[in-house]
C-alpha cells in the first residue's frame, strides 16, 4: 500500500508539470493580443504596451517563457497578473471562498443526493422515484446560468429568504452552494439509484434476505457498500469540477472565488494567472483521486493494489 501511495505521489509531480506545459501551450496558442484584451475597448498606450511586453517577456518565444515560468514556480514565485498584482495574494483571497462554497455544495450532494438515491432505488417505481426523475429533468433541461438567476430572483428578491449577493458570511453562501450542487446532485441521485437497484437484485442480497436479515441491514450494510463504489468515483471527480465549474455561480452571486478569477483571467488572456490556477486545480484533483482510490480498497476488499 505504501509503495502504491508513493508511486502515485511521484506520478503527481509528472502530471503537474505535464499540465503546466499543456495549459501554457494553450494560452500561448490562444494569444490574440493579451495587452489589448486587458484594456477592453479603449486603446492601450504605447508606453504601457512596451512596459508589459518587457515585464512578461511577451516578445520572446514559447520555450523561453515556459522555462522562465517554471523557474519562478520552483523558487516559489508565482509571478504577477497582467494588472501587476502578485498571483499569490490574488489566490490567497480567492481560495477560502471557493473552498467554502464547494464544501457546502459537496455536503448537499452527499447527504441529499446519495440519501435520495438510496431511497429511490429501494422504493423503485414509487412516487419518490418519479419525483427524483422530475427533479433531474428540471436540472438538466435548464442551464445552470438560468437556474442561478431564477434561484436568485425567486429566493433572494421575491421571497427574501437569502441575500442576493455575497456578504462575507456563510449564510449568503448557502443558496449559491445549493444551485452549484444541483447538477451533481441530480447525477448522484440517478447513479446511486441505479447501482442500488442492481445490487438489490444481486444474488448476495437475495441470499441475505432469505437468511432472514432485516431489509434495513441488507440495504444499509451490504448493498450500500457495493453501490457506493461508482458513486464514490463520481463524487471524487465532482468535487474538483465543482471548484472550477463554480464560475457561473460565483459570477451571479458576486463571490470573488477561484472560478471567477480563472474566468476573468481567461477572458483577459492573462496567461500566468490561468496556468497557475489550473495547475493548482490539477493538484487538487490528483489528491482527491488518490483519496478516492484508497477509499475503494476500504469499500471493496477484493480490490487490491500492489
Amino acid at each position, binding site marked *: 500500500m505504501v509503495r502504491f501511495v508513493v508511486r502515485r505521489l511521484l506520478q503527481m509531480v509528472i502530471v503537474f508539470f505535464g499540465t503546466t506545459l499543456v495549459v501554457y501551450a494553450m494560452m500561448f496558442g490562444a494569444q*490574440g*493580443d*493579451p495587452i*489589448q*484584451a*486587458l*484594456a*477592453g*475597448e*479603449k*486603446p*492601450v*498606450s*504605447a*508606453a*504601457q*504596451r*512596451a*512596459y*508589459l*511586453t*518587457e*515585464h512578461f517577456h511577451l516578445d520572446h518565444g514559447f520555450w523561453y517563457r515556459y522555462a522562465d515560468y517554471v523557474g519562478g514556480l520552483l523558487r516559489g514565485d508565482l509571478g504577477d497578473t497582467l*494588472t501587476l*498584482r502578485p498571483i499569490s495574494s*490574488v489566490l490567497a*483571497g*480567492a481560495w477560502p471562498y471557493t473552498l467554502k462554497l464547494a464544501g457546502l455544495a459537496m455536503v448537499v450532494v452527499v447527504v441529499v443526493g446519495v440519501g435520495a438515491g438510496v431511497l429511490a432505488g429501494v422504493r423503485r417505481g414509487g412516487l419518490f422515484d418519479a419525483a427524483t426523475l422530475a427533479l433531474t429533468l428540471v436540472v438538466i433541461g435548464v442551464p445552470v446560468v438560468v437556474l442561478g*438567476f431564477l434561484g*436568485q*430572483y425567486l429566493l*433572494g*428578491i421575491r421571497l*427574501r429568504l437569502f*441575500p*442576493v*449577493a455575497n*456578504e*462575507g458570511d456563510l449564510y449568503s453562501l448557502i443558496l449559491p452552494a445549493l444551485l452549484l450542487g444541483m447538477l451533481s446532485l441530480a447525477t448522484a441521485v440517478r447513479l446511486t439509484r441505479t447501482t442500488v437497484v442492481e445490487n438489490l437484485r444481486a444474488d448476495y442480497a437475495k441470499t441475505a434476505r432469505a437468511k432472514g436479515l432485516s431489509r434495513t441491514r441488507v440495504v444499509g450494510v451490504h448493498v450500500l457498500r457495493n453501490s457506493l463504489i461508482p458513486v464514490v468515483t463520481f463524487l471524487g471527480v465532482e468535487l474538483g469540477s465543482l471548484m472550477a465549474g463554480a464560475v457561473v455561480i*460565483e*459570477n*451571479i*452571486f*458576486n463571490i*470573488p472565488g477561484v472560478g*471567477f*478569477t480563472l474566468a*476573468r483571467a481567461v*477572458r483577459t*488572456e492573462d496567461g500566468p494567472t490561468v496556468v497557475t490556477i489550473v495547475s493548482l486545480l490539477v493538484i487538487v484533483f490528483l489528491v482527491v483521486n488518490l483519496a478516492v482510490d484508497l477509499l475503494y480498497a476500504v469499500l471493496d476488499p477484493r480490490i487490491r493494489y500492489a
Partner: protein
Amino acid sequence: MHVRRATARIVVAVVAAGTLAACTGGPATVSAADTAAVVSIGIGEPTHLIPTNTTDSSGAQVLAALFTPLVTFDRNNKPVPAQADSITATDSRVWTIRLKGGYTFHNGEPVTSDSYLRAWNFGAYGPNGQDNNPYFAKISGYAALNPTDPKATPTATTLSGLRRIDALTFQVVLSAPYSDFPAALGYLAFLPLPAAAFDATGHIARGFEDQLVGDGPFQMRDVWAHDQSIEVQRYDSYSGTKPKVGKIDFKIYQDLTTAYSDALTNTLDVLPGVPTPNLATAAKDFGNRYRHSPSSAFQYLAFPTYDPDYSNVNVRKAISMAIDRDQIVKSVFAGSQIAARSFVSPVLPGYRANTCGAACQYNPVAAKELYKQSNGPAKVQITYNADGGHKEWVEATCNQLARNLGVKCVAQAEAKLADLLPKLQNKTPGVGMFRLGWVMDYPSMEDYLTPLYSTGGSANYYGYSNPQFDQLVAQGSQQPTGAAAIRLYQEAEDLLARDMPVIPLRFGQNDFVYSANVSNVSVDLFGDVNLLDITVSGT
C-alpha cells in the same frame, strides 16, 4: 460611590465635548447620524488606481472621491478652476497654472507645484509604462521621454516643457497651441501625487496603490480589498466643499445584474449603470429613484475601408437610412438612450444636431432604392464583441436591415474586441461592419475628432483617412480661442457627413438607480456619482 460620581462626570464631559465638536463642524453641518451611516456605491474592479495609469470608469469613480482635479465643469460643460486658482495663457501655448493654497494630502503633506510636476513627469516617462502616458504628448519635451524604439533609454527623465515658478505656480509649455488645454486638465491623468507615493528609485512605493493618499474630500478608510470593496471616509481637513456623508463603500461587483438585484433589496445604495435587460422594468422597480443624466457615450457602426463591398458612400448612406434608430431606442433601451444624428456627443461645446442630415433619417423606401442603385452587397454582416451586452440591439439592427433592404444579414459575435482588432489590422475579409463605442476623456470636440476620425487616430480601427479633415482639426486645436477652434471643428464634422465613414447610432445617458436610503443622487458627465451632494435619507 466615588467611582460612580467620577464616572458620571466623565460621561457628561465626554458627551458635552462630543456635542461641541459636532456643532463646530463647519458650513456643512455634521450630525451624528451622518458620520455613522455608510453609503454604498456599486462599481467594477478597477484595473489600477494610480491616476496616470487609470483608464476604466470604476477607477475614475474612486479617484473622484480621493482627489481634487485642477478644473471641474459647469452646467455648459466649460471648465472652471477647482484646485487651480487660475489657468491663463496669452497664446494658447504657454499656460501658467496657479494653485489655491491650503490644500493638503491625506497624510498632511501640502499640495504644491511639485506634487503636480512629480506626478506628470512620472506619467510621461515611457519606461514607467503608464496607460495615460499619451495625454502628456502635447507638452513640450515629450519625445525625449518616449523614444520611438521601445528598448532604447530615454534621453531625459523630466519634461522640458514643465517649469516650476514657485510653490503654488508652475508653467506648462505645449509643443503646439491647444486652446482646449484647460478642459484637458480636468482629466484624471493630470492629478497630483504626494511625495510619499514614490520610493527612492522614483517608482511607485510598494503598497501605495492599495492604500492611496490623495488630496480629495474623502480618504481611504482601509486597504483596497480586491474584488470586494474600497472604503473611504470624509477627510476632515479638506479645504474645499465638504461632502454631506461621512462614509462611502465602493462595493465591487462582477456582474451588473447582481448589483441591480442588490439595489432592489436596498442592500446597495447607488448603482450608476443599469443593465440593458433591466431597463424595461427599472421604472416599475424604482419609481422616481430611476433617473437619467447626460453622458458622453457614443455608439456607432464602422466600415473597414479595405472592404470593397462598402466602398461606395451611397451604400453606406443607404444602410444608415434603413436603420430605425428610434424603434431600437424604444424597444431595446426603453427610451434611456437617444438616437444619434451627428458625429460627436451632444454634451460637447460646439455640438450641432442633425449634422448627418438625410442619411440618418429613417426612410426604408428611399434606402432600398438607393441600395439597389449603388449595387449594395446581397449579404451583409455586423460584427460585435459578445462581452459588452450588445447582442440584442445588433440583432435587432440586423433584422431591420434584412427587412428594409431585402438582404441577408448576419450578426456575428467575437468573444471580445481584442479578437476583432487583429483581423482588422490584417485586413481579413468577411468582417463586414462592426460596432464601436466611445466615451470622452474631457469635454472637447477635438477629443472625438482626433481619435475617431483623423488619420491614424488611436480609435480609428477602420482606416478612414481624409487629409483635409486632418488639417481642419489641427488648425482648430491651435486657435487662440475656444470659439474659433469650434468653428473649424464644425467644418471638419461637415466633411464627415459627406464621407459617412461611420454610421452614428445612439448617444448614451447615465441610467442610474438608488435605494430608499439615500437622496440627492446625481451622476455627472463622466458617469461618476456626485459625492458632495449625496445625503442619507431623513437627514
